[in-house]
């Protein structure tokens, strides 16, 4: 298949293809981080994760409309504000959901699956009633469109670079919060032993609520960022949920490092295979590989050792 091309051409394509893999990697990490926190730290299977992402996307859409209507001069920078608003909106909704629904189900982890699935249906219908059944188009500022010309034949999409930077930033923040801050220590203590954590004076209910809120908030930011590369509609969240769970489960439920490693291996396999065969076949082979590895290592790539 490469016979007709010059070495220079091939080189550029491989660079761009490598970059495509890195973008896919960042997308996977970004969408899986929120779920990894909630699933990993709290054991809650949040089927409504995609809908929290789409809330972020809708917030972005509304912000962009507001800026266009009232502050067209500042339109170039609206995206940063939109991401913060998306974080707050999804995070707040997440905390509300935790308070109303999830906290009653901590002792029945399988029921959270059903409850959050119901929640996802309700949210989808709510979006449909409020924003309409059709997809909305989120207009981006001019500087985020198009690609960077690295050399004469290598082009790198700007939105891809943006997602990568955002992913790195959010991962660092999450890692810091989880492993260096006082609050993160409390979260980890609750995960390891809820009763003892309570006994030493940690308000476990509050920790739960904020953890759930943080996970949902990150989903909101991811949704906001994905308006650059994907669609925004009532059911768009469904497009992400399967891949998200795949990444989290493959990585090992309770490990952030595992999530990153799993996102990396899945995205690289996927994008390399996609280049050599059709997209559907690539997906099938990737899933097969994941299933095979999970059969050998049911706990995922990285498992936290917890005394049960």
């Amino acid at each position, binding site marked *: 298949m490469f016979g007709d*091309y010059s070495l220079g*051409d091939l080189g550029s*394509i491989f660079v*761009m*293809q490598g*970059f*495509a893999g890195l*973008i*896919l990697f960042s*997308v996977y990490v970004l969408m899986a981080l929120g779920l990894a926190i909630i699933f990993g730290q709290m054991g809650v299977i949040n089927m409504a994760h995609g809908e929290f992402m789409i809330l972020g996307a809708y917030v972005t859409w509304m912000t962009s409309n507001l800026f266009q209507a009232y502050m067209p001069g500042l339109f170039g920078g609206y995206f940063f504000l939109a991401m913060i608003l998306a974080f707050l909106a999804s995070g707040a909704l997440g905390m509300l959901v935790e308070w109303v629904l999830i906290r009653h189900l901590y002792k029945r982890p399988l029921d959270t699956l059903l409850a959050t699935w119901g929640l996802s249906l309700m949210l989808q*219908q709510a979006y*449909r009633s409020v924003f*309409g*059944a*059709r*997809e*909305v*188009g*989120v*207009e981006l500022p001019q500087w985020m*469109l*198009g*690609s960077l*010309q690295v050399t004469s034949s290598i*082009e790198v*999409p*700007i*939105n*891809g670079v943006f997602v990568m930077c955002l992913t790195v930033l959010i991962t660092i923040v999450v890692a810091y919060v989880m492993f260096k801050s006082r609050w993160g220590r409390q979260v980890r203590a609750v995960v390891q032993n809820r009763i003892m954590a309570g006994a030493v004076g940690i308000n476990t209910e509050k920790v739960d609520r904020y953890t759930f809120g943080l996970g949902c908030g990150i989903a909101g930011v991811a949704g906001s960022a*994905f308006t*650059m*590369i*994907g*669609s*925004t*509609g*009532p*059911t*768009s969240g*469904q*497009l*992400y949920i399967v891949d998200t769970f795949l990444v989290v489960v493959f990585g090992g439920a309770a490990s952030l490092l595992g999530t990153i490693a799993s996102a990396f291996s899945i995205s690289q396999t*996927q*994008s390399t295979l*996609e*280049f050599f065969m*059709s*997209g*559907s076949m*690539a*997906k099938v082979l990737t899933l097969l590989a994941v299933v095979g590895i999970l059969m050998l290592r049911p706990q995922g790539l990285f498992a936290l050792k917890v005394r049960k």
Partner: protein
Amino acid sequence: MSDETNKGLLSPLRRKLLMGMAAVPAITMLPRTSFAQTPATSAVNTTGLAVTDTEVTVGILHSATGTMAISETGSIEAEKLAIEQINAAGGVLGRKIKFIQEDGASDWPTFAEKAKKLLVNDKVAAIMGCWTSASRKAVLPVVEQYNGMLYYPTFYEGLEQSKNVIYTGQEATQQILAGLNWIAKEKGAKTFFFIGSDYIWPRTSNKIARKHVENVLKGKVVGEEYYPLGNTQFNSVINKIKLTKPDVIFTDVVGGSNVAFYKQLKAAGIDLAKQPLLTISVTEDEIDGIGGENIAGAYACMKYFQSLDNPNNKAFVPAFKKMWGEKTVIGDVTQAAYLGPWLWKLTVEKAGSFDVDKIAAASPGVEFKGAPEGYVRIHENHHLWSKTRVGRAKLDGQFELIYETADLVEPDPFPKGYQ
């Protein structure tokens, strides 16, 4: 039937009266036939459909919820508009159309179940409905078993024909061949890259397109790629497009994937003003979600664009916007859905009856001169003769008409040499 069950309760006198009336059945119809040229119900409805002296009931069966609601909302709106207009113009055979709307909920078994409910319980005279091929395939055995009439609006892959279905959208050869011919001639295109979503319609359409490119246009297909429905990452295939440098990218990606595909194409630096792209799956409806700036310059090949400049369309577009809001857009399928109730009305009037068998037999040759797309006529195979058009997407999300076939294109659901 109430006469039967109540007989025992009637006074002997009334019973005698009734028996006397039964002896002259024509007289019992008198009060109704005295109304302006409304034919008697018993004459126009011999199979027990939901037809009264003043009303006839039809069903609307689309997804108002679930994934497909994005696409099917426009069809529902168009069908309701058509029904309202027909009623305002006096209805069908003197009867107002009443509709019962059912929600297929983007779930194919639900479609079949609701179709059965409409036909068996509600006895609707016709169903305007379905959108995806999967939903049509689920409903088809039901309408055939209970002898219903389905008006199906979507452009689709062909390879189907039923006495009980009128296909108001284009089948694949109608839609694709004229577009490929045009772009081959206009752009001197020789190499094509196909990319589609992975299900029956894109695969069948691309099969037809490939045969046409290879056998008729003497060109070459340099890539044919499929992605699962809902896929959101297209960077790898975009790199492949960059590597193969095709003269034309030919796409039938659908749904949410569409948005991702065009956004990433634009981000990857592929300028659609310089790289010809021909799509058969993007209508004005989809551009709403994709964003005009991401797809401007692309060519779409179908039978209707909102911007068409003809008297019918100039009346249709404002009427649609008046009913459904200034911001709504009208895509190819929406227009085809609008044809459904009108074609049914015209056929009923031609047949002089609501009976499904008579309508099925009377359908071929029925013409609708008021169609927003211009003029359509039903073919013997229950598809429509229609023109095929190529439009170029503009920044504002509308298409600019670039080319249209001189004559109506014959529908050919079982194309020889293309299977």
